[in-house]
């Protein structure tokens, strides 16, 4: 699939910063950033991104809850969602996949290879 626009949702500014640089310069994609699940849902409705990267552990609405909201929304349910989390366990990957995630990327990640990891998950 062709990717033009990526929405990245993470409450940690340091992660948003390095993702912005990686996705725009290595992936050559347009990047939209959100710092909470609520903002992420709003921006997803407004921007209709090609893929959404979603942090798991966020205050307020966490990643899995945001994912469920995305999957319940007729206009957004088709957008692939990749969850990002530190030290992911195999049973967690299974759990997130059951919730409708396209895949999981483990943090930390290499900013030089993050876009290819995303492409790989989308093509799997």
């Amino acid at each position, binding site marked *: 699939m062709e990717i033009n626009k990526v929405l990245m949702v993470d409450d*940690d500014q*340091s992660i948003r910063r390095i993702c*912005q*640089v990686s996705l725009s*310069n290595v992936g050559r994609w347009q990047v939209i950033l959100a710092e909470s699940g609520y903002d992420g849902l709003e921006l997803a409705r407004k921007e209709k991104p090609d893929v959404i990267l979603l942090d798991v552990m966020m205050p307020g609405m966490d990643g899995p809850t945001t994912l469920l909201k995305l999957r319940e929304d007729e206009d957004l349910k088709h957008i692939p969602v990749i969850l990002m989390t*530190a*030290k992911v366990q195999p049973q967690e990957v299974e759990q997130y996949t059951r919730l409708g995630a396209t895949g999981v990327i483990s*943090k*930390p990640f290499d900013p030089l290879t993050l876009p290819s990891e995303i492409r790989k998950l989308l093509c799997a």
Partner: protein
Amino acid sequence: MAIEDENGGDNEEVNDAEYDEALDEVLGTLRREYEDELPARFAELKNYLDKAKEGGEKQLEWLAQAHTIAHRLAGTAGSYGLAELSHNAGIFDAYCKRLLKSDVKGGAHLEDWREIDAMAEAIFSSHPAGQH
């Protein structure tokens, strides 16, 4: 091609080799900015741990705050190339996750604190910002 910084702003047009060099430079700048923020993060982590050690009804809340900081360090530090810090924060993250899930009634036990202190020290000693 033009390199975008973390604010999404374009710099001047460059060829492939210059592009790689410019990207390295942007990543290097980001890493320095991240490292500049570490003393504040370490101080915050230490503060929450000190509060948690005092006990009281908010003990688990303070420990959960310390856990959140360690969890973030585990995820971010490695992405900025600070592998040892990320690794040690990950150990603390996993330990606190288990401890908090076990719903410790009446506070963490002394041996927990010894372990927590040792793991926190490993985090601080992973980077010059945490060495006194």
